[in-house]
């Protein structure tokens, strides 16, 4: 069997970036939550906010630490597997990605240290300020990454000279048509991720009756937030979809499983798209649904995949199903946020075991939604790496052979499996230990440094933990 370096490189990039993406999307949301908690502490003087802040800062530290480690590989993936892409796009992508690293550097050197280790060394206001700056910093990092990705989706502000892209306008190249939508969608996704994890963890403690007062507060405030954010995300997602329809119509055609450009297109709930057949094997849908959503008119014309040759169509079923998983997760999140409101009215929010158990499982939903959402937008772009400009075939490293990619793919999977298992295992350990009583004389060790976020948690990796009281 011939190993295809392009397919394997795509798999490898998808694996590495998916694995990595889990952590930043979590830390972005969590950083903002920690800033809110520390802000509430400064505003009210109530120590329970500080305790919650400390607990979630420790979790933030672990997740941030794993994210940094897994991110090292990302800086090299472009060159190892997609060197012709870098050669083509370095004038644009290079500075953008470097600015992300510089931001992270700056963040690490400055405010992260104060947030993680300055709790007893600076005043609560200064500590809050540091938390706020870390939250802002995570968004700046995300900004650069999404600017780069949006340029690959809807490229502009450049010209091609001798096969290399040259910037003609940084403003145009950075603020491409899809960027504002992508950024808003991703920012909300990060908040939803942080929010549902906080809910799930709080629910876990409430079921066990530990630190009930604090976790009730956490759950209550987060559910109010989710009640606004989850429906808002549906709206922003819809706007993002309309933007995609304008700039990448074939991606939307794949999302809808629509082959022919026509009016009165149904909204498919389930289908078996088949690229060889150039049709769906079977479909169950709501009549006129897709036309209504995309054109706000039951007779609206929706573009179909047959407008382009089969070789240029994305793998339809992957886009189709990923999109449905994302939307399903989104609807589930809205449902849980609404259910929270009703239970609150009935006064059973903190006691309904059924709901609290459900919230625990819902911690996973935003991660699933984020990954499947990225699958939609990335796979939906294929066969283009830079939309309508550079294809995978022209972007891959020419000297690469299939076995080289396979060897490193297996290698990365092994390495990341070890990190993931030990990291998540440790994360659960930190969570189980629960809220600490804040001790103003807590010893701060020499080895605790901002450059090592994980050192902010003094929880043993194995052996006995103080969580045995549960």
């Amino acid at each position, binding site marked *: 069997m011939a190993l295809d370096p392009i397919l394997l490189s795509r798999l490898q990039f998808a694996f590495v970036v998916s694995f990595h993406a889990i952590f930043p999307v979590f830390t972005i949301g969590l950083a903002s939550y920690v800033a809110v908690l520390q802000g509430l502490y400064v505003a009210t003087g109530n120590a329970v906010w500080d305790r919650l802040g400390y607990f979630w800062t420790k979790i933030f530290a672990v997740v941030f630490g794993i994210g940094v480690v897994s991110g090292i590989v990302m800086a090299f993936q472009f060159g190892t597997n997609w060197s012709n892409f870098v*050669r083509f796009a*370095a*004038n644009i992508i*290079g500075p953008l990605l*470097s600015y992300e690293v510089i931001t992270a550097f700056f963040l690490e050197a400055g405010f992260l240290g104060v947030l993680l280790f300055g709790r007893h060394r600076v005043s609560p206001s200064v500590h809050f300020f540091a938390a706020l700056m870390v939250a802002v910093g995570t968004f700046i990092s995300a900004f650069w990454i999404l600017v780069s990705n949006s340029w690959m989706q809807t490229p502009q502000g450049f010209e091609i000279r001798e096969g290399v892209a040259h910037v003609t306008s940084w403003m145009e190249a950075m603020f491409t048509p899809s960027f504002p939508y992508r950024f808003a969608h991703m920012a909300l996704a990060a908040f939803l991720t942080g929010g549902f994890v906080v809910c799930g963890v709080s629910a876990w403690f409430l079921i066990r009756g530990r630190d009930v007062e604090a976790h009730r507060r956490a759950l209550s405030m987060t559910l109010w937030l989710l009640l606004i954010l989850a429906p808002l995300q549906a709206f922003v997602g819809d706007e993002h979809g309309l933007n995609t329809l304008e700039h990448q119509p074939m991606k939307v055609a794949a999302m809808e499983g629509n082959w022919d450009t026509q009016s009165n297109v149904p909204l498919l709930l389930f289908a078996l798209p088949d690229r060889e057949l150039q049709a769906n094997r079977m479909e169950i849908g709501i009549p006129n649904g897709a036309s209504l959503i995309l054109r706000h008119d039951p007779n609206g014309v929706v573009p179909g995949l047959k407008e382009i040759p089969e070789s240029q169509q994305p793998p339809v079923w992957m886009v189709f199903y990923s999109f449905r998983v994302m939307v399903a997760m989104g609807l589930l999140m809205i449902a849980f946020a609404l259910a929270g409101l009703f239970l609150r009215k009935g006064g059973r929010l903190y006691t309904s075991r059924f709901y609290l158990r459900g919230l625990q499982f819902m911690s996973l939903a935003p991660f699933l939604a984020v990954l499947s959402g990225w699958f939609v937008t990335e796979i939906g772009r294929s066969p283009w790496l830079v939309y309508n400009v550079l294809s995978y075939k022209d972007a891959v490293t020419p000297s690469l052979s299939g076995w080289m990619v396979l060897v490193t793919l297996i290698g990365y999977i092994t390495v990341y499996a070890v990190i993931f298992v030990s990291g998540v295992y440790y994360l659960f350990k930190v969570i189980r230990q629960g809220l600490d009583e804040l001790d103003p004389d807590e010893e701060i060790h020499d*080895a605790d440094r901002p450059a*090592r976020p994980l050192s902010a948690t003094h929880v043993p990796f194995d052996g006995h933990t103080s969580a045995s009281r549960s």
Partner: protein
Amino acid sequence: MQMFDLSLIWAVIIAVGVIMYVLMDGFDLGLGILFPFAPDEDARDVMMNSVAPVWDGNETWLILGGAGLIGAFPLVYTILLPALYLGVFLMLAGLIFRGVAFEFRFKSHRSKRYWSLSFAGGSFLAAFAQGCVVGAYIQGFETANGVYVGGALDWLTPFTILTGFGLVVGYALLGATWLVLKSEGHVRDWARALVPKLLLGVLAVFAIVSLWTPWIDRGVFERWFDHLQVIWLLPAGALLCALGIFLCNRHGREGGAFLLTLGLFVCTYLGLIVSRWPYVVPPQITLWDAASAPESQFFLLIGVLFVLPIVLVYTAWSYWVFRGKVRVGEGYH
């Protein structure tokens, strides 16, 4: 923008970044390499504690180097990484393993052995792979129209294996002189006894590589045996540093031994650059060929010039805060 040679400025920034990385990550990789040979578990704790405050910041230089290359010299990035494909993977796997091991060893009891093993193995792998990269760089890369056309294992030859082990021994020397500086009692005595042996190893590799290199490539030969005699100060400096390390170590001047080891690395590094200047992807591509567009280099330069001084000051400050010896039983468990 025409007033400055942006490519030259960037070459200096990246060259400084690389040597910063080599010097700063070098000694903690070196400790990882020496880890299995440590006399006891106490010594291992001291070794780790001596670098705990600083090691992770050191590796950020590597990421900055990678990203900076895409921005300023994309051709270097797009030729070197494909050419060193498997080596880069080994290096990254090594660095990741030792990074995770570093954190979890502190927090573990029963699984401590495995984390120690990962720390040592990862350090060795990363150092060896980096040494091979140095060797591959001296060898040069087979390119056509700015694209790598060589094989998957061109970077693994007898010469690069030699440079690979050379860097392992070199990092071990850095680690040993660092440990002498940062420890006391039996740990320091052990490290101190290692220094002359490691120094001998480094000098042996240094001699073989120096004799071998000029014959690998005509350009290198001409550079060294042409009219530019002033560059002979670099190997002379390296030898003086080596002598200094030996004497300092013997007479217990700990700071001197460590600083001179850094000096030895700097002289060797400059010698390497001089051998190949102005080629950044030997034997054909110069730094001007490899540069990105001036507007891109300029755009990025603004950010780097703003942040780099802050990072440098902060780094210096954290070394200052954690100066002095690490004792057995200090740090956390």
